[in-house]
């Protein structure tokens, strides 16, 4: 059976300065219990790969508030003034990537591909210093795969093999991140017995999940 663990033990396994992918879009689909415990254990110097940093007090915003983040790769930080303040004060660095490119870079990391060739951002500031390929007369920007030490993801349902089903727009970056990190922690709204999620309803097969995080249960 897949290893279940407490939030406390899960976060204890994450070292300071780790690179972490965190699922969610403006906090929707972000594993809040794991984030809260990261703050409680004061895991700092983090490199975070995520779509955004949500808002102060919400999702990844809590890591920013607690000044635990050294670098962010994201598509958008406009909703979090604290991220912008820390960036301007040079307390953290930010790399901004178009959302569709970011998700494909993570997918490339998880799918064993050498990079993504996208028309997006060609000719703009975001392509400066990067490799451009001409393919059949059209220009494409080559962006490299992204991987991380850990992924903290959120699912609606999880069975004891780690099979996951996401919910509506809480899915977002979670499934690609489950492919791209060395160690995957999942926090689910509901844990169900093996066999209770039909094969066609599984969005992420359990073999990709390393630890199922039990929330609200003492270790």
């Amino acid at each position, binding site marked *: 059976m897949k290893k279940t663990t407490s939030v406390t033990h899960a976060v204890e396994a994450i070292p300071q300065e780790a690179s972490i992918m965190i699922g969610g879009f*403006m906090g929707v689909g972000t594993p809040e219990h794991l984030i809260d415990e990261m703050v409680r254990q004061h895991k700092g110097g983090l490199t975070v790969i995520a779509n955004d940093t949500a808002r102060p007090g919400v999702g990844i915003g809590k890591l920013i508030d607690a000044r635990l983040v050294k670098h962010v790769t994201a598509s958008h930080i406009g909703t979090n003034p604290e991220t912008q303040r820390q960036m301007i004060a040079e307390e953290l660095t930010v790399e901004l990537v178009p959302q569709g*490119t970011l998700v494909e870079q993570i997918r490339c990391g998880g799918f064993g591909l050498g990079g993504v060739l996208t*028309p*997006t951002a060609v000719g703009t500031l975001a392509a400066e210093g990067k490799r451009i390929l001409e393919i059949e007369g059209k220009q494409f920007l080559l962006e490299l795969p992204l991987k991380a030490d850990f992924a903290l993801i959120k699912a609606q349902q999880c069975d004891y093999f780690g099979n996951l089903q996401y919910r*509506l727009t809480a*899915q977002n970056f979670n499934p690609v991140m489950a492919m791209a990190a060395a160690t995957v922690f999942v926090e689910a709204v509901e844990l169900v017995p093996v066999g209770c999620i039909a094969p066609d309803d599984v969005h992420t097969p359990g073999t990709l999940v390393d630890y199922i995080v039990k929330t609200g249960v003492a270790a």
Partner: protein
Amino acid sequence: MNGKQLIARRVAREIQPGSLVNLGIGLPTMVAQYVPEEDNVFFQSENGIIGSGGLPDGMENTSLSDAGGGMIGALPGAAAFDSAFSFGLIRGGHLDMTVLGGLQVDSQGRLANWIIPGERVPGMGGAMDLVTSARKVIVAMIHTAKGTAKIVEKLNLPMTSDRRVDLIITELAVIRPSEQGLILEEVAPGVNAAQVQDQTEAKLIVSDSVTTMELKPT
């Protein structure tokens, strides 16, 4: 009716029945309320759904939000998906139209809307993908910013994409960027071409057939 409502009602006329449309956060979102339900327009929210509805009115679910993080509803026949698929729809040219706000548009029809260097660095989010690859790109914005022209000869802010947008709709005018430059096609009720040019830094080509904007009924 204020300027934003006027813009939204004009933009709504561009939306074809049965099409797939992405509306940006802010002003563009207002467009949806002027699109009649029987048109069966599919609205995509790039965070992972086609068929997003308006405010869910007491039926909020914390796993269903729009690209601004606000709670939304879902219409019958909605489909949810992950971000890779969502941007596959956008980049792959499956999106019929996107409507976005703008900081500047220049005489070549290029949009800037993601960064004011040294001042505000929100990030591009999905805007670069949307502007580069949607079949039709409409910029919906107030014509000037505190008296400063936003439709300029040459961008002084970093551009969002080198693709020429298809239409600029403001509370004063409808302007179509073309190879020749910016063509003034429509003026708002009570506004004339000279007044529009007055508020515009870029030189406008006044179409022979300038008309007065028609608006979707409320």
